[in-house]
C-alpha cells in the first residue's frame, strides 16, 4: 500500500478566533501534550474522523450520545463479553469533530484466556438469543415508558398546600434537579442497552463477511448483507403504517381529504365525518410508537420525528394514495425479497469447493441471520423512539432556562454541556428558593452567542479523515463493519483528498447498493422537500431514515452524505434494486438539483456530466 500520511494529532490545524473551544466539550476528549506518555499514546494510535455519525461539528449537549457509546460499546468489548483481541474505542475531539480509535489487546498472551471467557459469555448470548432479546425489548419499552411519564416541573410562585398537608417534605426545585438527573440517566441507560447485543451481532457478521470475501474475493459487501438481511425488520414498519393509512383512506372514501397535504387541514376535515373519525383513530394507533421515527439519524437534536411534524408523513402519504388510485401495488415485495435472499445464499454456497467450507458457511450464515434483525431493529427503539421523546423532554427543561432568561431561545440549550445545564439548574433553583437573582443571565447568553460563532467556524473547516499512525491489523468488529476501515478505504480516503483538490467532476462514497444509472439530481436537505421529487430523479440527501421511505417509490438511485453499507438508504435501495452511494461526505453541497450525473453503486463513484 502506498504510504499515506495523516497529521499528527498534536499538530492538527487550529482555527483562529475559536481559542478556548475546548471548554465546550469534556476535558478528557482533548489531545494533549502535557504528559509524555499520553502524548506518545495519542501519536501512536490511528484516529479516524467519525463522519459516519457526525457530518457536522458536535453541539456541546449532543455529545451526550457520543459519551454514552464511548462507555457502552467499550465496556461490552473489554469488560463484559471479553472480545478476545479487541478492547474498546477511545474518543477525542478536534475543532468540534469526533475522532475515534480502536484499542487492541496489548499483550497477545492474554488472548487465549480472553477467548475462553468470550466463548462462555458470548456463547451464552448466542445460544439464548431469542429469550434474551425478548427480555431486552421489555427493558427498552420500560425505560421509554418512564421517559414518556417523566414530568419536568415548572417552578411555582408558591408550593401547593398539599406539600404541607401530605408531609411531602421536598420542593419543586429539588424535583426539577431530580427530574433532570433522571432524564440524563435514562438516556445513558438506553445506550447501555443499545450495545447489549450489538457487539455480538457485529462480531458474528464480521466473521461471516471475512469468510465470504475469502471464498469469493470479488463479492460485494452489499450481497453479503443481502444474504443475512432480515425481512420482518421494524425499520420498514413506519412506512408500512403509512401505506395502511393510505389504503384505509381510500376504503373509507376519505382519500380526497387525506390528499390535502397539510396535517392541520387533514385533521380538521377528518374530524367532521364518521369515516374521517375512524381514519383518525387508525392514525392515532399508528402514531404510537411508529411515528416516533426520526427524519434524520436521531443523533442530533434537530432530527425531528413524524410526531413532531405530521406534515411530513401525511404529505408523503399522498404519493401512496396516488399510486393506489392508479391501481399500482405499493406493498413491499417481501416474497420476492426472501426468494432472492435465499437464492443468493444457496448459489454462493453451491460454489464452495469443500464440505468443510459449506459447514462453516452454514454456521456463520445461520448465526448472522439470528443476530442481524437486532442490528437493524435496535435503531428504532433507541435512536428513533427514545431519542425523539428525549429531545423534547430536554426542550421542556430548556423552557425553564428561557423563562429565567438564562438563554434566549429554547434551541439555545444545545450549546450547553449537560453538566453545565445541571449547574445552571442549580443556579435557577437556588435563586428561586432564595428570592435572589441567579447569575445565569449574566453568563449564558454571552457564552451561547460566542459558541454559535465558534461552531460556525468549525462548520467551514474540513476535518482530516484521520490523524496519527496507521496500525497493521484491526480486530474490532465495529471498526470493520460500521466504518469499513480497510486498506482499500484508507487509500480511498487518500484518493478523495487528492480529488477534492483537483478533479471536481467526481465524487466518491461507500458502495451502498449496486447498479449503474444516469439521471437528474434532486437535492433534498430535509424530508419535507421529498414532495418536490420527480419520477426517475436521483435523490441526494444528507441522510435518510424510515420516514423518507415514500421517496424511494419515485427515485432511480440515492446518494447520501452520511452512512455506511448498513445505513437506511443502502438497505432500502438494495431491497428495491436501486443503486445507492452513501457516506460521500459532501454530495448535498457539491451536487445541484437538475444536474445530470452518472453513478456506479458498486464502485461508489459519481461522475458529474453537466
Amino acid at each position, binding site marked *: 500500500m502506498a504510504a499515506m500520511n495523516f497529521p499528527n494529532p498534536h499538530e492538527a490545524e487550529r482555527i483562529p478566533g475559536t481559542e478556548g473551544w475546548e471548554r465546550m466539550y469534556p476535558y478528557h476528549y482533548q489531545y494533549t501534550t502535557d504528559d509524555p506518555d499520553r502524548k506518545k499514546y495519542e501519536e501512536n494510535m490511528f484516529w479516524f474522523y467519525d463522519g459516519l455519525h457526525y457530518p457536522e461539528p458536535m453541539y456541546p449537549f449532543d455529545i451526550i450520545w457520543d459519551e454514552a457509546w464511548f462507555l457502552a460499546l467499550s465496556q461490552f468489548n473489554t469488560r463484559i463479553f471479553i472480545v478476545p483481541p479487541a478492547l474498546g474505542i477511545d474518543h477525542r475531539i478536534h475543532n468540534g469533530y469526533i475522532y475515534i480509535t480502536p484499542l487492541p489487546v496489548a499483550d497477545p498472551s492474554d488472548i487465549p484466556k480472553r477467548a475462553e471467557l468470550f466463548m462462555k459469555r458470548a456463547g451464552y448470548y448466542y445460544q439464548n438469543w431469542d429469550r434474551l432479546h425478548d427480555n431486552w425489548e421489555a427493558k427498552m419499552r420500560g425505560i421509554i415508558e418512564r421517559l414518556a411519564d417523566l414530568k419536568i416541573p415548572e417552578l411555582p410562585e408558591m408550593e401547593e398546600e398539599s406539600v404541607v398537608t401530605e408531609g411531602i417534605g421536598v420542593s419543586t426545585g429539588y424535583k426539577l434537579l431530580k427530574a433532570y438527573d433522571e432524564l440524563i440517566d435514562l438516556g445513558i441507560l438506553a445506550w447501555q442497552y443499545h450495545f447489549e447485543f450489538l457487539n455480538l451481532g457485529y462480531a*458474528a457478521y464480521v466473521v461471516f463477511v*471475512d469468510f465470504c470475501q475469502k471464498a469469493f474475493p470479488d*463479492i*460485494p459487501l452489499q450481497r453479503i448483507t443481502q444474504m443475512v438481511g432480515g425481512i420482518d425488520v421494524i425499520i420498514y414498519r413506519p412506512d408500512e403504517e403509512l401505506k395502511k393509512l393510505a389504503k384505509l383512506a381510500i376504503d373509507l372514501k376519505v382519500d380526497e381529504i387525506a390528499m390535502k397535504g397539510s396535517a392541520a387541514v387533514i385533521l380538521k376535515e377528518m374530524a367532521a365525518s364518521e369515516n374521517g373519525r375512524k381514519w383518525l383513530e387508525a392514525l392515532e394507533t399508528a402514531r404510537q410508537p411508529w411515528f416516533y421515527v426520526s427524519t434524520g439519524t436521531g443523533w442530533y437534536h434537530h432530527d425531528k420525528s413524524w410526531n413532531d411534524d405530521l406534515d411530513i408523513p401525511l404529505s408523503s402519504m399522498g404519493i401512496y394514495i396516488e399510486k393506489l388510485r392508479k391501481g399500482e401495488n405499493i406493498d413491499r415485495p417481501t416474497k420476492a425479497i426472501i426468494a432472492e435472499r435465499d*437464492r443468493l445464499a444457496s448459489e454462493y454456497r453451491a460454489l464452495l469447493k469443500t464440505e468443510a467450507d459449506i459447514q462453516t458457511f452454514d454456521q*456463520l450464515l445461520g448465526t448472522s441471520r439470528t443476530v442481524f434483525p437486532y442490528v437493524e431493529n435496535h435503531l428504532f427503539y433507541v435512536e428513533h423512539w427514545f431519542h425523539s421523546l428525549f429531545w423534547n423532554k430536554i426542550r421542556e427543561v430548556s423552557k425553564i432556562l428561557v423563562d429565567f432568561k438564562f438563554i434566549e431561545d429554547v434551541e439555545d440549550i444545545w450549546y450547553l454541556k449537560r453538566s453545565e445545564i445541571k449547574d445552571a439548574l442549580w443556579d435557577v433553583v437556588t435563586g428561586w428558593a432564595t428570592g435572589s437573582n441567579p447569575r445565569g443571565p449574566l453568563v449564558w447568553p454571552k457564552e451561547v452567542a460566542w459558541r454559535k460563532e465558534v461552531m460556525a467556524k468549525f462548520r467551514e473547516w474540513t476535518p482530516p479523515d484521520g490523524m496519527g499512525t*496507521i496500525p497493521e491489523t484491526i480486530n474490532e468488529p465495529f471498526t470493520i463493519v460500521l466504518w469499513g476501515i480497510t486498506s482499500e478505504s484508507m487509500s480511498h480516503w487518500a484518493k478523495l483528498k487528492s480529488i477534492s483538490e483537483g478533479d471536481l467532476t467526481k465524487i466518491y462514497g461507500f458502495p451502498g447498493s449496486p447498479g*449503474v444509472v444516469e439521471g437528474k439530481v434532486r437535492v433534498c436537505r430535509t424530508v419535507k422537500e421529498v414532495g418536490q421529487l420527480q419520477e426517475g430523479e436521483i435523490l441526494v440527501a444528507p441522510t435518510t431514515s424510515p420516514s423518507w421511505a415514500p421517496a424511494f417509490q419515485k427515485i432511480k438511485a440515492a446518494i447520501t452524505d452520511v452512512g455506511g453499507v448498513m445505513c437506511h438508504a443502502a438497505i432500502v435501495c438494495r431491497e428495491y434494486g436501486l443503486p445507492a452511494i452513501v457516506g460521500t461526505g459532501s454530495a448535498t453541497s457539491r451536487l445541484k438539483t437538475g444536474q445530470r450525473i452518472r453513478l456506479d453503486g458498486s464502485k461508489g463513484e459519481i461522475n458529474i456530466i453537466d
Partner: protein
Amino acid sequence: MDTSGYVIPFENCDNSMVGIVGGKCASLGELMKARIPVPPGFAITTAAYEQFLNDNDLKKKIINRLTNLNDEDLSKLEEASKDIRSWIEAGTINETLEDIIASHYRLLSRRSRIPALPVAVRSSATAEDLPGASFAGQQDTFLWIRGVDQLLDRTKRCWSSLFTPRAIAYRIKMGFDHSVVLISVAIQKMVRSFTAGVMFTLNPATGDRATVVIDSNYGYGESVVSGEVTPDQFHVNKITMDVVKKTVSEKKIYYTTDPESDEVLKLDLHPERQTSQSLLDEEIIQLAKVGKIIEQHYGRPMDIEWATEKGLPYKGEIFILQSRPETVWSQKEAKPLVEPKASAIEQIIAGLIKGRTIT
C-alpha cells in the same frame, strides 16, 4: 427430408453419436440442446464418407497402400499420404449424396438469409482416432467457403485429412486398424463477428467462481486470443447477473473480412472506436448468462470463445464458437478456506483473533 443418415443437422447430434458425426459435431449438438447459441450447421456423417469410399472403390486400395509401412519412415509415409489424399480428392461424390448435402446447405443459407452462405468446413474426428490433439482438424479447417462446389471440394479434403503422414504414423504406432477409422465433416455457418473474444466462468485473476470475466474487441476473436490488443474487460456477478466492473481499453487493431474477397484482414480500428465500449451492457449480461448455462451443462468452470454478429436483418446475436474446461484454478487442490470448527462461536472467535490486516 432425407433419411439416408448421410447428413445430420447439429441440433440432432449428441454425445451418443460421436461414432457417426465425430466429436466436434456431437458437442455442438450438446450445446444446442442446452439452449446455447452456436452457429448453425450440419454434419456430413461417417456413413457419407463410407459411401464415398465404396462408390470410388477406395477402401481396399487404401488398405493395400498402407500395408507394410513403418511409422518411422517419414518419406514412405509422406508418399503414401500423398497418393491416398489425391485419390480421395479426385473421387466423385454420387449425385444422391451431392443433392442431400446441397439441399442442407441451401436450407442453411435460406435460414441465415444470406445467398451462398459462407461456411466453415472442418473435420470432426471420431474419438478413438486421435485423443487430445486433433491434428487432423488442425490442418483441415476451411473458412469462408461459399457455394456447393467449393463445399464438396473442401469436404473431400477434410476426408483426406485422415491420411496425413502424422495421422497414419500415429495409427501404426498405436496399432489401430486403418480400415475402421472414419471421419465426419462439420459444415458450420461463418459468423461475421462484429465483436468477439473470450469468456471465463470464473475470475482468472482471483479464482472467484461467482464472477464471469469477458474479454472483448471488435472484429474476430483472433485479436483477443493472440494477445495483439488489450481487450475491454467486463466482470459480471454470476449470481446476480450485474456488471460489476468495466475496463474499456484502447484497442488499436481488429480483424475483419474483406466483403469482396472474403479474406481476413488485420486493420487499424477507427480512432473513435478504439476507446469505445465494444459490448453493450445488455450483451455483456446475455453473454454471461450463456456462460453460466455452459458451466452448469458441463458442471465445471469453462473457458469459452464467443462472437456477436450484426448487420443481419436482426439485431446483434451472440454465438458460442468453442468451449473447454478452465484448467488453471480448477486443477488447484481444494482445501478448506478456514479450519472447520465444531460450532459457530468457535469460528467467530478464530475469525476475531485473526482480525483484518490493513497495511
